[in-house]
């Protein structure tokens, strides 16, 4: 059932064939020995990177490898604990974003940093307004904005439109325009393509090429390794807060980059699992939601754990929301026990026996100011009350206590506020709520996000235990080692659609390469 994605042919028409600009190849930015800790977490241990003028320098690594933190240090949003930054050969101290902008370091963050109520033009110039006689020179700003918009292939009339009325992709392009408005010498693009369509990516690339040919250095972060070969000349790989090395891109393949990112670590050990035969419990047939995902096909049997793995922006999280009735599908169907269902609300989904562990537990999963007992019993009030009216406190406490011991939640009492607990413990409590009544189908979205290693193990054990008791489990995750460790079958979601299926013997490198696009769409290796 596993697949071995083939290494793609590298495009022969490498970008920037001549690189014939005056200062091309000179060191524009040189980072040495950078480290940064947040409390006890060492986000960056030791990072070195040399970025040359007139080139596109890719920066890759798994989630949490330290890319974003490194970028924040360069752009002045964070300051490093140790290490030196040299800009055009001279050491510099970048402690604020204003200083970075002053040097000509412009950043496009992953999340568009924009003001919905202000016009595109105002957004682009906030913080560096063109002022004449104490008054903003609207005409001049407008003129420059129109130029930038044209460069990006956006209509000139957008200059005066409020940013909030544009699509997310257009907002992303406005962020890029914003970065370009200052005379950038270094342009940092943090996952710029995650939310862009192919056409928009082409526009982005042509802009990037134009910039590099005029000597700008571009630092390009992307999870989509295949596209790096079309735009970058060099690549720096990060893993666990360290820079592993910098390589000319033509010396590597997608597969080799993926290996460098995961460090060649093989599968984590997982116990033998016997997956029962039987008809599908939950089926998604050609499920689509316009603009989010399309033609998603998944089937989960009772007692089976199926993983759905995709990178940020691939549409995985929206699939989970649709199954749980928070979103609706525009076509295709969801089948439960062979019957077609269309839950209109989380309540309806729950009644059908579908439980969800939401991805963002702080917002969607927990009542921060309430006790553990409250958090566990919420959603089971009928079960834990007299005639569905008065709470049965004794029973509530009993259930909470048994859950605390079963899940090994570290807490002095079930009366503890959940808001004061660590991420891992809080997640266990949220999970406990789903376990009070064993669900027929459990959908887990990012079950161990922000959870420490020990708690992660226990949560994985619990999920396995549930499956052994006959629950059909669908785990939606962007954490690759987790996806591999926990799933009996793993489906890769790319570009909003399920592409390749892997069995338990798949390797990280295979899956990552597939998710990043090293498999041609037709090659549905099953």
């Amino acid at each position: 059932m596993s697949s071995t994605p083939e290494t793609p042919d590298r495009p022969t028409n490498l970008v920037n064939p001549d690189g014939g600009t005056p200062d091309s190849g000179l060191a524009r930015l040189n980072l040495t020995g950078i480290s940064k800790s947040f409390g006890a977490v060492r986000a960056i241990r030791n990072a070195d990177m040399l970025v040359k003028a007139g080139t596109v320098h890719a920066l890759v690594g798994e989630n949490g490898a330290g890319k974003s933190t490194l970028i924040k240090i360069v752009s002045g949003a964070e300051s490093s604990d140790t290490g030196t930054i040299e800009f055009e050969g001279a050491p510099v101290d970048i402690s604020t974003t204003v200083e970075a902008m002053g040097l000509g370091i412009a950043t496009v963050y992953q999340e568009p940093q924009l003001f919905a109520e202000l016009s595109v033009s105002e957004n682009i110039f906030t913080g560096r307004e063109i002022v004449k006689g104490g008054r903003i020179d609207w005409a001049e700003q407008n003129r420059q904005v129109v130029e930038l918009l044209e460069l990006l292939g956006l209509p000139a009339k957008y200059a005066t439109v409020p940013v909030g009325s544009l699509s997310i992709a257009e907002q992303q392009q406005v962020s890029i325009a914003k970065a370009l408005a200052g005379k950038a010498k270094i342009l940092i693009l943090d996952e710029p393509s995650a939310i862009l369509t192919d056409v928009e990516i082409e526009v982005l690339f042509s802009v990037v090429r134009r910039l590099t040919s005029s000597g700008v250095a571009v630092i390009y972060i992307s999870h989509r390794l295949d596209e790096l070969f079309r735009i970058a000349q060099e690549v720096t790989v990060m893993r666990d807060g360290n820079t592993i090395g910098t390589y000319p891109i033509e010396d590597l393949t997608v597969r080799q980059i993926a290996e460098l990112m995961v460090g060649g670590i093989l599968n984590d050990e997982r116990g033998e699992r016997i997956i029962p035969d039987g008809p599908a419990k939950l089926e998604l047939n050609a499920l689509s939601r316009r603009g989010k995902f399309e033609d998603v096909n998944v089937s989960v049997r009772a007692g089976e754990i199926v993983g759905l793995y995709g990178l940020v922006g691939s549409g995985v999280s929206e699939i989970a929301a649709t199954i749980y009735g928070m979103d609706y599908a525009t076509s295709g169907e969801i089948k439960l026990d062979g019957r077609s269902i269309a839950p209109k609300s989380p309540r309806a989904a729950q009644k059908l026996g579908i439980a969800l562990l939401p991805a963002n537990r702080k917002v969607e999963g927990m009542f921060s100011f309430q006790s553990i007992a409250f958090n566990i019993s919420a959603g089971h009030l009928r079960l834990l009350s007299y005639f569905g009216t008065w709470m049965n406190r004794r029973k509530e406490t009993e259930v909470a206590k048994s859950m605390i011991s079963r899940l090994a939640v570290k807490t002095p009492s079930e009366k503890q506020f959940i808001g004061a607990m660590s991420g891992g413990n809080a997640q266990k409590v949220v999970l406990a709520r789903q376990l009070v009544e064993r669900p027929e189908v459990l959908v887990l979205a990012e079950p161990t996000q922000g959870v420490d290693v020990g708690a992660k193990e226990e949560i994985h054990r619990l999920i396995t235990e549930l499956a052994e008791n006959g629950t059909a489990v669908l785990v939606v995750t962007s954490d690759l080692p987790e996806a591999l460790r926990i799933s009996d079958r793993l489906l890769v979601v790319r570009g909003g659609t399920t592409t390749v299926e892997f069995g338990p013997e798949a390797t990280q490198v295979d899956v990552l390469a597939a998710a990043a696009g090293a498999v041609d769409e037709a090659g549905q290796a099953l």
Partner: protein
Amino acid sequence: MSAPTVDKPAGLPTPPPKPKGRILAPAISGQEYVLVGVIAALWVILGFATPRFLSSGSIQPLLANVAPIALIGVGMTLIIITAGIDVSVGAMVMVCSVITAKMMVAYNIPLVLSIVIAMVTGGVLGLINGLLIAYGRVQAIIITFGTANLFQFLGLQIFGSETVNNLPDSRAFFGAGPAGRTFGLPHAFFLTLIIAAVAWYYLRHTAGGRHFYAIGGDPQAARLAGVRVQRRTLIAYVVTGLLVGLGACFTIALGTATVQANIGDGKELAVIAAVVIGGTSIMGGRGSVLGTVLGALLVQTVTSGVTQLGWPTQLSDLFVGIAIVIAVGVDLVRERARRKK
């Protein structure tokens, strides 16, 4: 990623540049036109219902009474644009009034000096709020709720369980009588218009002014863009404090010769009502001073109208309440319509 393409003409040849075009929202927004229309309609209706309403003897006090609400509203607009709020302005009016009134009575100080005293007092109170909110990073509504009680206590202590009587006549300058008018307009209203115009220009056409909108839109993005978020936030509260001081002078001047401890009661609600009815989003990031002045005018028109019709006064609360609900509803519908896109 082969997600369905957005309906956007990317890659198509763009039409020649159009350097012309409005960058800002139009000077007068839809909501403000509606307000002007509603106010005009009310004036006409009230004019028919009680012919006395449109006489100068009725309009002049109305405008004079609009002044303190609109003036403090200018400051509140700044605050609400940054996604903050200040519910302590009523208590601040009380503190400023009692200090100023006591000084006026005790030392018979000139009017200019009493204005300075009132504004300095208000500025200090605003500074306390601003420092706590901008640098202490506490929720504006909670902290100003707290300081409102503190200021209330402070003011009552200064009152010493008495009223301040026999205010000097110099206060007439602000427009309680004919001496305090120019071109028929009470000076308090006149001053308010001038200050509102300055604030309007500042918010609209200077970099510093636009930064308030940026902060309300997304403080993190504003910080990354190089906006001095904390300093701007502080300024909003201090400016409000200064305007509360001047507004307190108006309030003293327009009342009787006696200042009572209830002088600031309900002012914060009237001011916030004016700002919200004027179209400033309570979520921050959008709003205008012009709307606030119109909002104050509407609130005062309703209050005066109800009084002059001889209706029970609680009806004016009802009407103002309805206006607030409509204004907030319009804001929500707008936001939803935008999300859908």
